[in-house]
């Protein structure tokens, strides 16, 4: 065989455990050399469908043991490691930043997944407590996941920036609807393929691509979404806060630099921001 036709991949989003093109059927091109890759331009309806899928998966993910969640995240790291070269190339496409090499960025992403995999069965020991009380009660506090959360990834650092926001949320047991970088979405498309093969239950992480300005208001105002973690501009942050007020959503912003490779203390703080405390007073004696 002397000639083969090139077989090119159709970029698809990973949402609800399926690879979808946008319900709107719209795409937008990103250019690489002389080629254009057509990325799904997700709509409000795609956001809504992703939220439904996330809500459905919430109890499954929450009820997994921390140990099991850790195993699954470690498996995700294995999946990324095996496709290191491909990810490196995707990250290098029109990379806005020159101070971090794509190779370093992919390696750091994988290491960060392993870091959070470790946290899955350990954050409870650090954040939970047995509380001293002046009555015959055994009083203790445990941490429970907040619920469906949204992530809005920074426009640059398309892989590590996205993972840096998703990981603390799923570590804590929250399902996530994530909006990838609008300008550099291709690493997120690949990440979806790895999430699908990592034993992560469908719907726990839903990755959408599209224009941030189209989808921010929907993500911020959706009542089912209980928390939102974003790395966005000051103007966008204001827009999100206004839209999120009606549904009293927990909203946190994080500068782009801090999305990558947090220290253990930073990681624990990020995890704790999307947990709900439950305190139990258990009577002692008769």
């Amino acid at each position, binding site marked *: 065989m002397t000639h083969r036709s090139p077989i090119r991949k159709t970029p698809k989003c990973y949402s609800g455990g399926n690879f979808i093109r946008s319900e709107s059927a719209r795409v937008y091109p990103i250019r690489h050399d002389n080629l254009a890759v057509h990325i799904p331009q997700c709509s409000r309806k795609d956001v809504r469908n992703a*939220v439904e899928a996330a*809500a459905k998966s919430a109890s499954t993910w929450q009820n997994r043991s921390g140990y099991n969640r850790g195993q699954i995240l470690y498996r995700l790291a294995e999946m990324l490691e095996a496709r290191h070269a491909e990810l490196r190339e995707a990250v290098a496409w029109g990379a806005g930043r020159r101070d971090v090499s794509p190779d370093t960025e992919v390696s750091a992403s994988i290491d960060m997944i392993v870091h959070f995999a470790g946290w899955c069965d350990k954050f409870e020991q650090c954040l939970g407590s047995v509380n001293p009380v002046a009555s015959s009660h055994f009083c203790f506090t445990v941490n429970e996941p907040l619920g469906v959360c949204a992530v809005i990834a920074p426009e640059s650092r398309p892989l590590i920036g996205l993972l840096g926001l998703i990981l603390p949320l799923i570590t804590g047991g929250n399902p996530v609807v994530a909006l990838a970088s609008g300008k550099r979405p291709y690493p997120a498309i690949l990440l979806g393929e790895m999430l699908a093969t990592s034993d992560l239950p469908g719907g726990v992480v839903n990755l959408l691509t599209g224009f941030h300005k189209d989808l921010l208001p*929907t993500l911020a*105002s*959706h*009542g*089912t979404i209980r928390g939102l973690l974003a790395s966005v501009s000051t103007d966008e942050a204001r827009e999100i806060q206004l839209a999120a007020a*009606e*549904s009293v959503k927990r909203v946190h912003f994080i500068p782009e630099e801090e999305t990558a490779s947090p220290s253990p203390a930073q990681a624990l703080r990020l995890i704790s921001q999307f947990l709900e405390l439950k305190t139990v007073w258990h009577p002692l004696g008769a």
Partner: protein
Amino acid sequence: MKSRYGTVDAVGVSERVAKFAMRSIKGVSKTWGLRKVVSMMDLTTLEGKDTPGKVAALCRKAITPHVEMDLPHVAAACVYPAMVTYARTCLTGSPVRVASVATAFPAGQSPWRLRIEEVRRALAQGADEIDMVINRGAFLCGEGGRVQEEIATVAEVCGSATLKVILEVSELETLDNIRAASFLAMEVLRPGDFIKTSTGKTSSNATLETHQVMIEAIRDYFLATGVPVGMKPAGGIRTAKQSLQFLVAVKETLGDAWLVPTRYRFGASSLLNDVLRQLEKERVGAYPASYGFSESESAY
């Protein structure tokens, strides 16, 4: 039976109903349609764990589906015979009707005298509408006459009460059978009575296909005899979008005359909350959380 009532072109039906799912219904039309769905709903609870308290909550929701939206009441509350008395207490003085399943719902596999006695009891305790199940075993044996006699007897016992005949389409095997069973029932029903797709207790439920076969049977029967029979799809209709597709099917097959609660009903339990959620979204512009509605599975 088949030759008497005609046959169904299965491929044609599936082509036809595929079109219903492609209509884009948005904005004002969506709101109009969803309000219509609310007014046509038989809000249902048919579970072993039903209690008087749960039935009371259902009835309150039937009268006032949502406190902040100005919505019509639903058409009826549908319960098991043992719960009719509680539903009657809650709904007396309201325009919402009390519907009861009867005749050994859902299987219908009880002695005939017990089945008919169940209808009498439900009526005596205040049911306005009876949802009976047909004897599918007899139908599949070819004893169409016996099935028809049973329906006729129940209709007679019902008196002024509305009768809805559940064909349980998932157990009738073929679309031809569904058409034949529809005609068997309609021939002994009175104007204003209904035929109904399913019990909601089997593996498959009301689909647009089986629904289409039944409404075309209703249309053909109406054109032949002038007797308008109502239609009630039930089971498996959980989303507002599905319900709008059913409405489109009715409008395009039977016309506007059937878009009223006296000729068309939805049998559903979780559908109402999804409809309310979509209406609330149209009203406030943001998707509300499902747990914000009463009686929701994920409510606090």
